[in-house]
């Protein structure tokens, strides 16, 4: 083995320029992989974490279904609906009947961390001359804390104030900004769908970083919202936090079966985003793999050239007793050495790129808000980049090495005289 390593190392280091070019190719590929994975996954993980944790792992709610009375199953079968022009939507029974029973039941189930009731509705919020529509969410803070992480995003930590002062609300940061509210303590007017007008005090702001939520949400005491919407003791959603987020889809089906209501897992609620992320990942990884493949071709090319140039050396090595397998290993080792140095250099470059990207400061306002790149800086991308580089280097060098081992020394001795 020592002789193989010695020859491989010498052959590689004495061809510095070629070795450097192929090493840099691998390094750039690995660095690109690390940086791009870090940026893409950082953004996605941040979004999923925020969105999933703030909303719910599972939401039990009333599903809008076709009016059973309008299904013409007797004539055409179950899935045929008669759409009568000019007819109005049927009044939806927007409440979960016996929700307290479900609260008690699921609270005791060790697959769940917490369950909390929600009453949601729409309203117009006025402040001075400005008015905005808002999504009102009535909550019970004690239960809410166990079922979501909403508390983490209340800027001044005044979630309990909506319990002590029932006429207080917590307003989305962007909604407050749009209304011109800059600090807590301001009173706003709320117009309910039935026309009721209520004056409420903004005691805190909700700032999740997810634009669509911060632009629309208003949290208030469940009892207050039940009074405003004239729905005493009613809730229309139960949010459930599960121990294993990956089990949400399965558990949602179980809950749906158990309650008869529609249980929506976070995967289903965010399926559009997850699909986009999946596509985004495909595109990103295809690009990165293209870079890695190009660098692998770099190794392949150089190894192939080396084998062609070193035919005489291969012949003499065989003559002095080196076996076919050893000749293969001499050249594969060169490829792996290029891969190893390239991968290590790529990891260093990737790390520096991450540091640089993390230091950049600029406002991102899209589906999330941030003042720079949100990076996922887990070591796994370094490990994966390293493994990919070594695998690519191995495959890129194997064929030329195998070709080298198949050379018949006598042919070379005869042809080089």
């Amino acid at each position, binding site marked *: 083995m*020592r*002789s193989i390593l*010695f*020859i491989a190392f*010498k*052959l590689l280091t*004495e*061809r510095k320029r070629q070795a450097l070019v192929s090493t840099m190719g691998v390094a750039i590929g690995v660095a690109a992989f690390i940086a791009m994975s870090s940026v893409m996954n950082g953004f996605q993980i941040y979004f999923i974490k925020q969105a999933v944790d703030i909303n719910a792992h599972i939401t039990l709610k009333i599903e809008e279904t076709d009016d059973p009375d309008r299904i013409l199953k007797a004539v055409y079968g179950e899935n045929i609906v008669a759409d009568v022009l000019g007819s109005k939507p049927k009044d939806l029974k927007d409440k979960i009947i016996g929700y307290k029973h479900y609260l008690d039941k699921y609270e005791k189930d060790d697959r769940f961390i917490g369950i909390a009731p929600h009453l949601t509705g729409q309203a117009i919020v006025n402040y001075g001359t400005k008015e905005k529509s808002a999504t009102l969410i009535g909550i019970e803070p004690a239960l809410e804390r166990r079922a979501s992480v909403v508390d983490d995003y209340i800027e001044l930590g005044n979630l309990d104030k909506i319990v002590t002062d029932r006429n207080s609300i917590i307003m989305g940061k962007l909604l407050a900004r749009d209304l011109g509210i800059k600090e807590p303590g301001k009173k706003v007017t709320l117009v309910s769908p039935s026309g009721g007008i209520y004056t409420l005090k903004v005691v805190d702001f909700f700032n999740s970083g997810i634009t669509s939520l911060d632009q629309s949400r208003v949290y208030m005491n469940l009892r207050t919202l039940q009074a405003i919407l004239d729905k005493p003791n009613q809730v229309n959603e139960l949010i459930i936090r599960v121990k294993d987020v990956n089990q949400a889809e399965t558990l949602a089906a179980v809950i749906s079966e158990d309650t008869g209501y529609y249980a929506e897992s976070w995967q289903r609620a965010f399926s559009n985003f997850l699909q986009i992320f999946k596509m985004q990942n495909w595109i990103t990884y295809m690009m990165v793999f293209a870079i890695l493949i190009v660098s692998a071709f770099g190794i392949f090319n150089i190894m192939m050239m080396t084998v062609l140039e070193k035919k*005489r*050396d291969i*012949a*003499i*090595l*065989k*003559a*002095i*007793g*080196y*076996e*076919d397998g*050893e000749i293969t290993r001499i050249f594969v080792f060169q490829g792996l050495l290029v891969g190893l140095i390239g991968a290590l250099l790529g990891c260093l470059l990737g790390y520096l790129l991450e540091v640089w990207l993390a230091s950049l400061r600029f406002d991102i306002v899209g589906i999330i808000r941030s003042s720079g790149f949100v990076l996922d800086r887990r070591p796994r991308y370094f490990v994966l980049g390293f493994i990919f580089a070594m695998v690519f280097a191995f495959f890129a060098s194997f064929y030329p090495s195998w070709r080298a081992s198949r050379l018949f*020394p*006598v042919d070379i*001795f*005869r042809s*080089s*005289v």
Partner: protein
Amino acid sequence: MSVILEGRDIRKSIGESEILNGISIQISTGDFISIVGASGSGKSSLMYILGLLDSPTSGGVIIDDKEVDFGDAKLLSKIRNKKIGFVFQFHYLITELTAYENILIPMLKNGVNDRERLKQRCYDLIESLGLKGKEKRKPYQLSGGEQQRVAIARALANDPEIVMADEPTGNLDSKNSAMVMDVFLELNEKGRSVLMITHEMYLAEKTKKVLEIKDGLIVS
């Protein structure tokens, strides 16, 4: 004198043409055999088969009283490494390695790991072949004669029982040819067996036994 290597009724054909037509040869300890003949007579082919670089179409090679199995590539490599040293018309030195390193590689393959022993053996060979002071030079920094002497040192690295040389002076001027020939004669005087292929009669005449090959047969 004991027989080191024996070729029995060696035949070699490539396609339709018969290159060797049943050659038998014995090489014993202390032999210096030169094989002469015209180009294409089969001299090199015979050396490649005796040196286990090529296999015969029929016939066999006996080393240490055992017939060599040409299907066992591992065994052939092992015998080449330990028992046979090769010198060719072209030096075939690895250009990326120094003279010292070129001499080192057969020993590394042989599994010699004692650093001091490796160093000592290399420097002994360098000195005995008049290459002292040139051990750190790359092949392109050496003259033709020096390159060939490094190749001879590499062939001797594992102290083989027999050295096979295929036109070792073919690329050298008369002065360097004489110098290389002297090296072989000296090696033989010290008891090493040498098989040399040459087409230069004046060199062949310096050896102990001259065999002439014609049309794939030893004729004299």
